[in-house]
């Protein structure tokens, strides 16, 4: 048989193991051991960051799932023309940005909200206070240790509140995982100024309308419904 040799050092984790850690689904028997290896191995950390960046880039640039249609096998190939720029962006992301925990905003319950920004074809990891431009696309990611019900709400620079995820109904169940992308990203409109995104993590499926009511109260008077904690991220939209 053709011997490929190993592309990673002996004892390092396979891509499958890293994919499982990324998805928050490490095997019960070896999960703790693999997580410990990842924490202490620079090679695997680099590979893990690469997979994570690839996941975020895919979520940002892939066509929405609803666009997959049976009768159109090649309809969404256009966006792969961005691939070379994306590859550069991912490399930049790996080497010039801080680690995954540095920019994730945590709620009091320890659940976390983070985001990536797609700007003119390149992807970067965002931090609270990030400067963005109209037309940029944001991909939010969440990190939770156990399944939670999530709602993502936004208050833009004009003070207007809106529900981003889900758009109506109740907070949606999210499985546990690290930096798990939301099913869709959103594009910034022309509103200039500081906006705030709230990730509201609940123990049960709370009504979005109830959460919007809480959001519309002044910051110092805002109380989220009892089984919920919120993590927030600010972004500043500046003129191009």
């Amino acid at each position: 048989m053709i011997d490929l040799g190993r592309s990673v050092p002996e004892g390092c984790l396979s891509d499958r193991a890293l994919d499982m850690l990324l998805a928050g689904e490490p095997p019960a028997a070896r999960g703790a051991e693999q997580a410990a290896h990842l924490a202490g191995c620079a090679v695997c950390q680099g590979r893990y960051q690469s997979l994570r960046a690839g996941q975020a880039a895919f979520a940002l640039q892939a066509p929405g799932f609803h666009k997959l249609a049976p009768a159109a096998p090649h309809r969404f190939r256009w966006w792969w023309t961005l691939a070379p720029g994306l590859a550069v962006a991912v490399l930049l992301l790996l080497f010039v940005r801080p680690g995954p925990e540095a920019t994730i905003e945590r709620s009091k319950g320890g659940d976390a909200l983070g985001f990536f920004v797609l700007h003119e074809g390149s992807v970067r990891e965002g931090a609270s206070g990030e400067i963005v431009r109209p037309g940029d696309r944001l991909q939010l990611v969440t990190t939770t240790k156990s399944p939670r019900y999530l709602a993502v709400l936004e208050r833009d620079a004009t003070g207007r509140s809106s529900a981003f995820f889900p758009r109506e109904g109740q907070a949606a169940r999210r499985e546990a995982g690290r930096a798990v992308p939301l099913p869709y990203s959103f594009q910034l409109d022309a509103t200039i100024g500081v906006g705030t995104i709230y990730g509201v993590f609940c123990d049960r499926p709370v009504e979005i309308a109830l959460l919007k009511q809480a959001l519309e109260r002044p910051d110092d008077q805002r109380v989220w419904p009892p089984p919920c904690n919120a993590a927030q991220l600010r972004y500043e939209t500046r003129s191009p």
Partner: protein
Amino acid sequence: MDLAAVYAAHGHLVLRRARQILNDEAEAQDVLQEVFMSLLRDPKQFAGSSSITTFLYSVSTNRCLNRLRDNKTRQRLLAARPSTEAVDARSEHLAQLRQVLTRLPAELAAVVIYAHLDEMTHEEIADQLGCSRRQVGNLLERAAEHWRRQDRQDRQDQQDRQGARP
């Protein structure tokens, strides 16, 4: 199962593996689409008895193997020759391995992909296939034996062709 969320969170791994196995961007995109369209049509095929990552590794491998068996893909891979420019040994071996995969039975080709391309441990392959580690070892031995036989046969055929020339 929220398929849109699965697609956003895991689509990247299907695409990455399809690129690695098939070495063709357009075919890799087709595999991505096939995997998720199939799930859209029949969500029950993911029974939840394994993790979603395990499931997607399995279905993406199977889809890629189907494509490797497709005559056009097979001809493309068999026609591929290492570049005359310097290429690293692994790239060259990868190209050779893809050719091997086109000629192995599906069951053996899958285990070769997990062992040689994904670099999984025998324990991981056993978990992936839902079998014992001993069975993984047996499958890999069978794959190697199958390939040795094939290789001998190819050499013999080549000698016969050369001998038959006037």
